[in-house]
């Protein structure tokens, strides 16, 4: 039971991490990213005509490193310009609007700024100058790595600002972008379903392969955007599953130990039954059934134990995690029913197998010796 509980808890924690991280990465960075070199919106719109169905929203992006300075301090961040693909190419502005940006809540907290306030943005790459930017919103994707390192600049406001303050740069790249962030319609494509996202990507690659395309693109799924993190998590998950799975097998043999004790105490009754004509097969079937029942219910209990322990952990101080290390602030838990069902099946199977082996050995007992009729 405890082995199954540990397996259940471990897998639900991993599933929780996986779900939280993947949701955070996908929501923040797009379900699929198409990278290219600097392109106009018109060129990128042409690209979109080859998208397979299922896309809900497409955003243009460019990115650069930068420095954000707030009243409490400064931090080097990733500046990402985001714009609507449908929008027209930017035209020179007649006013001098603020550059608008969205900050992750942890980053804003670090800088000591709030929504509606301003920060100083130093751009060494795209535009080498300092910009006073207004914080239009604070966001929280649930992935600390993103929430604390990204500043999402509204591309339209930036272009308008550049047309006034840096017309030379603006003239060179009015509304250009380095690629597209694609967001799926969840009703058509589950964004977290890796296989479906892969299928969409394959379809897109096939579609543009058939055309005379003028520029190179690379396509990455959300999982590939954090390949190392998810790869590491998969490895940890597999290793722990194997280790705890082995422990569960040992635990299942403890069920057998209980049966051995039971049968050792009741060996005369067992021998009587065999003497009366209970066949070895029937005896094995009987012990197997006992093992199956015990295994099923103890595994079921183990899953409840894992679930309860998980909830307790979440509520306890141990549930608070350092976000800088784990990317999330609370211990994430996700009880995936298919996963839990597999654990239930695994625990039950182990107990059944162990009981069948035991039954088979016990069925070969010398009944006359057990009944005291042989010296």
């Amino acid at each position, binding site marked *: 039971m405890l082995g199954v509980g540990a397996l259940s808890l471990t897998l639900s924690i991993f599933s929780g991490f996986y779900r939280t991280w993947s949701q955070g990465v996908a929501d923040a960075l797009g379900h699929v990213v198409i990278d290219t070199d600097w392109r106009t919106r018109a060129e990128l719109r042409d690209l979109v005509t080859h998208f397979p169905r299922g896309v809900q929203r497409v955003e243009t992006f460019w990115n650069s490193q930068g420095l954000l300075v707030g009243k409490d301090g400064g931090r080097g961040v990733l500046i990402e310009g985001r714009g609507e693909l449908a929008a027209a190419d930017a035209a020179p502005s007649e006013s001098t609007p603020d550059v608008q940006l969205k900050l992750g809540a942890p980053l804003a907290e670090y800088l000591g700024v709030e929504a509606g306030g301003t920060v100083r943005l130093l751009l060494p790459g795209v535009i080498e100058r300092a910009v006073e930017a207004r914080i239009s919103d604070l966001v929280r994707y649930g992935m600390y790595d993103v929430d604390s390192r990204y500043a999402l600049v509204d591309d339209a406001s930036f272009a308008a600002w550049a047309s006034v303050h840096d017309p030379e740069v603006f003239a060179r790249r009015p509304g250009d972008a380095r690629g597209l962030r694609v967001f799926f319609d969840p009703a058509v494509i589950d964004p977290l379903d890796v296989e479906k996202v892969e299928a969409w990507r394959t379809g897109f690659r096939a579609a543009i392969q058939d055309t005379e395309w003028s520029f190179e693109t690379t396509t990455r799924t959300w999982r590939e955007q954090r390949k190392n993190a998810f790869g590491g998590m998969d490895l940890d998950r597999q290793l722990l599953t194997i280790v705890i799975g082995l422990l569960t097998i040992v635990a299942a043999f403890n069920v057998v130990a209980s049966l051995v004790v039971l049968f050792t105490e009741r060996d005369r009754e067992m021998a009587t039954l065999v003497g009366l*004509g209970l066949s070895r097969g029937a005896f094995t079937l009987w012990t197997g059934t006992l093992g199956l029942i015990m295994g099923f219910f103890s595994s079921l209990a183990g899953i409840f134990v894992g679930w309860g322990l998980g909830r307790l952990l979440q509520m306890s101080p141990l549930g608070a995690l350092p976000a800088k290390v784990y990317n999330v602030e609370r211990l994430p838990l996700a009880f995936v029913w298919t996963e839990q069902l597999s654990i239930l099946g695994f625990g039950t199977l182990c107990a059944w197998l162990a009981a069948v082996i035991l039954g088979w050995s016990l069925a070969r007992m010398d009944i006359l010796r057990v*009944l005291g009729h042989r010296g």
Partner: protein
Amino acid sequence: MEVEPTPPLAAEILLDARGLHKTYRGGGEELRVLRGADLQLRKGDFVALLGNSGSGKSTFLQCLGLLDHVEEGEILFGGREISRLGEGDRADLRLRSIGFVFQFHHLIPELTALENVLLPSSLAGRRDKAWALELLRLVGLEDKVARYPWQLSGGESQRVAIARALVNRPTLLLTDEATGNLDRPRAQEIVDIFAKINQNFGTTILSVTHDEGLALKYGRRLRLKDGIVGEWTGD
């Protein structure tokens, strides 16, 4: 109780054991218990098997009841050779055709008298409560069917064991010192029950006993000596 005479010789042979050999080995020694034992039982026979302690009576009975294996010889049951059968078939014969009563009753303590009697029929998949009650009535325990073994005397427990051995209507009943733990009056009651069973159902009964007085109640008496079965002459 008056004992019926054994059926005539022409009656159909139920059990035919030929040249049975059995040797116990241990501690570098060999004990040859059966040395070519033969036995023929006809349908409806009521036979006592006598012999000294350690003569191999129980071993012989256990071999006939398929609880043990012989090394040589053959056992024909209803004309079919059964000594070389596999464990499954042996268990099936024990369950359906051969009843066995030990010196100790070996009842399941958690089951009532009725449930104990019903056990073999449950194992055989033909649970017949009315028949079990009839058997309990036959052995004089109709008012104790709901009692547990610990609520029964030794003689009563043995009677439950007899009813249990009969519940699947075996054609052969083997009893191994079934009265050995009982006082004289209780022992006589048990043998009377055996006689009644033999009479009422035509069940062939072979009883191992060391009590010559009780053996006189049987229709036929045999003796096992030096690993060979012979007629008991009373000396």
